[in-house]
């Protein structure tokens, strides 16, 4: 009775330097919800991007209803009845629901759009899905959940039998999620096959029929939801062999004073976060995508406004409204997106090194270029930044060396609290270990580090303590001695 809609086999995908998908397989039956789960970077998105024609595969086979197909672009995937609903909705806010659904294929009446026909067909579609949305509603007036359903309706209007939903519940409230699930159940009963990608463990057990786990670009296993439980799934998600020894014991000096204390930090995406950071300590921030770690860091740094909360540096309450306030209190932030938030890519290495502390290189408005050059050289040597000269434009440096320049910027400013947000993202393996070494040296010199990382081995290797976040809340703080991958993943998926 089961009808297979899609089957993927032996899928291989290489990115420069990364084996992104290693012999992966996946299949979807009509009338089922198939959940796809894995840590950040496990390969879920890459696999789905191959299925929807966004990336070409390097090798492997894809079958749609049993016959082999070649999907070389999104429109071909669409023609084969495969639709995707991205996490970020792609609707045009100022247009109506009907205009959005029919964009690019409007029914025409000579030179003019046949608005009546377009609206009627849209209403028919929305009614058949029992959605209480009208074709003439403006998208901007709809809730996020309703917009998502419009997006789904649009995919269905293109005759999609297979629907891929990427983190559909991420932006929804509790009651909206219930509404979404009801809708998904209806689609399942209508015979659609749904791929449900989510980090939220408990949701998978409510909505899915089968669960496929991926890890580090590999297919791990597919289980019937009824026959498994949360702990087995977590086991499969994190059950990698860690090549690099995790830290067995905290290397932070015992009894070191608290240098940074955060109390009750709140913003739309951060829910009442409190923690302490000790001198000479690396506090790892673990969590899945969207856990609110970067958002927390940006609040501490004054990059975004906070709704409420208190920040103490060396026991003194400080008022942080702008990054300038944070910097002047010795807090430096290294963004996960260096090119957007960390560097002035069009400027030189030395311009970037002195950017945060230029006041101290200025006399009567003039830049003391000798002092600037000697300080730049000092830090280029100290951090072994590979650059032909101090006046080299930063965009010509490798990722690892760019990261070191950002570190140098905060050291020149004499920051004592450094927030590293994904410090080794986009950096090759050799440079990675150099950054690790550097971080260890910095803590020996008495600097304190908050390290946000989505890489479990990195968290376990570098941290003295680990703060775990989920959905904007801090769900646990672990000592390195007690931390395991399973424990961290449990906290990272435990919605409270």
């Amino acid at each position, binding site marked *: 009775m089961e009808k297979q809609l899609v089957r993927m086999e032996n899928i291989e995908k290489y990115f420069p330097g990364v084996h992104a998908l290693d012999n992966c397989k996946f299949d979807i039956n009509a009338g089922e919800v198939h959940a796809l789960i894995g840590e950040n970077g496990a390969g879920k998105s890459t696999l789905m991007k191959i299925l929807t024609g966004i990336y070409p595969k390097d090798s492997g086979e894809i079958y749609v209803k049993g016959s082999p197909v070649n999907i070389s672009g999104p429109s071909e995937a669409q023609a084969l009845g495969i639709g995707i609903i991205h996490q970020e909705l792609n609707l045009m806010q100022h247009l109506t629901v009907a205009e959005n659904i029919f964009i690019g294929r409007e029914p025409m009446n000579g030179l003019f759009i046949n608005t009546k026909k377009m609206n009627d067909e849209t209403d028919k579609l929305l009614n058949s899905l029992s959605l209480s949305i009208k074709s003439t509603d403006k998208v901007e007036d709809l809730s996020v959940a309703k917009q998502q359903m419009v997006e789904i309706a649009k995919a269905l209007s293109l005759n999609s039998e297979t629907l891929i939903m990427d983190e559909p519940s991420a932006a929804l409230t509790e009651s909206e999620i219930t509404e979404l699930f009801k809708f998904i159940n209806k689609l399942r009963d209508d015979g659609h096959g749904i791929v449900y990608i989510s980090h939220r463990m408990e949701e998978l057990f409510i909505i899915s029929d089968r669960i496929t786990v991926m890890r580090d670009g590999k297919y791990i296993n597919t289980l019937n939801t009824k026959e498994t439980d949360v702990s087995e799934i977590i086991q499969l998600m994190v059950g990698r062999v860690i090549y690099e020894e995790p830290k067995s014991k905290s290397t932070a000096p015992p009894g070191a004073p608290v240098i940074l204390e955060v109390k009750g930090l709140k913003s739309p995406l951060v829910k009442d976060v409190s923690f302490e950071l000790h001198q000479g300590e690396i506090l790892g921030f673990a969590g899945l995508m969207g856990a609110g770690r970067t958002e927390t860091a940006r609040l501490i740094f004054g990059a975004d406004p906070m709704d409420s909360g208190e920040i103490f540096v060396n026991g003194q309450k400080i008022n942080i409204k702008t990054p300038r306030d944070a910097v002047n209190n010795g807090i430096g932030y290294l963004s996960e997106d260096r090119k957007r938030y960390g560097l*002035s890519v069009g400027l030189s290495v030395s*311009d970037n090194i002195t950017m945060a502390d230029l006041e101290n290189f200025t006399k009567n408005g003039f830049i003391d270029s000798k002092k600037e050059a000697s300080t730049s050289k000092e830090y280029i040597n100290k951090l072994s930044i590979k650059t032909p000269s101090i006046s080299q434009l930063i965009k010509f440096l490798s990722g690892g060396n760019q990261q070191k320049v950002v570190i140098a910027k905060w050291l020149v400013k004499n920051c004592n609290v450094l927030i590293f947000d994904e410090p080794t993202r986009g950096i090759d393996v050799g440079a990675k270990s150099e950054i690790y070494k550097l971080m260890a040296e910095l803590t020996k010199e008495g600097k304190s580090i908050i390290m946000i990382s989505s890489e479990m081995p990195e968290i376990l290797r570098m941290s003295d303590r680990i703060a775990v976040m989920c959905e904007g809340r801090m769900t646990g703080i672990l000592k390195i001695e007690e931390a395991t991958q399973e424990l961290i993943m449990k906290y990272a998926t435990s919605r409270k």
Partner: protein
Amino acid sequence: MDNANSGSAGKKLFGQLNFQRFLALAALVIIYVFFCIFGNNFLSTTSLINILDSSYYIGFLAIGVTFAIITGGIDLSIGTVMMTSALIGGVAYNKGAPIALALLICVISGALFGLLNGIIISKFGLVPFVATLGVQMVASGFGAIVSNVQTIRYPTVGTEDAWFKQVLYKTSSGFPIGIVWLVIFFIIAYVILNKMRMGRYTFALGSNEESARLSGVDVSKWKILVYVIVGAFTGMAGVMYAAAYTTIVPVTGAGMEILGIAAVVIGGTSLSGGVGSLTGTIIGVYIMAVLKQGLMSMGLQGHYQTFFTGIVVIAAVMLDIYRNKKSSKVKKA
């Protein structure tokens, strides 16, 4: 290995940057030589002096607006602000202020309009295009109100206060002294842009404003200051305009901003910000001045100048796009 690659890529781009400025300079020389051959009496001291005479106020406008453009912004108000500043100074003079004070008032008026631009852009978050478009009209109207829609006259040659023309524009012996002032203020601007904190932040704002903010730079303060500099140079352009042309007519100046901005673009400063040079701007100013005099020497009137300047601007921007494409290819390689 990686390092050696990036080094040579850097040299290549650096070479290209210089190459483009060299190209602008070469274009200037080629145009000049062209008119020397095909123009009527173009190769003469008179026409050289005419070229210089017509370059002063545009030169000041262009130097000023270079700062705004390097931040990734624009200032469309410079044309009318120049005229309005000159009107305000002229009104002060006609009400009995000493001429020196009147000229100072002119410069300060320009700076104040710049401050207004800066505050609207920086504190209220309007995009520079819209903010300065609004101020362009505000300034124009304000000048008409202050002058009572009367043409304002600065002292003419022969009168007691006309010394300012000899000091700023042309000596009694006919020496084009204006060029000396343009050079002096070019150097001042050059030092501000390349040696001072102000200049470093100007580039930083244009290169990546968010990164500057996250480095603790008081972005809003420095952005306001950039527009104050633009305004002050615009006020000085007003002084040079008064020294050269004596009469200031209300509700004029709209359209002159294009001349200043065109010079900046011809000089290779990128409208997307972060990249630019004052040397290029000055070359741009003189390419336009030579075009104007040269076409006149061929018996072609002002509208031909507009026509050809437009072509040069388009060519310069195309060159910029081509260069960016090439440099991004270098980056990938």
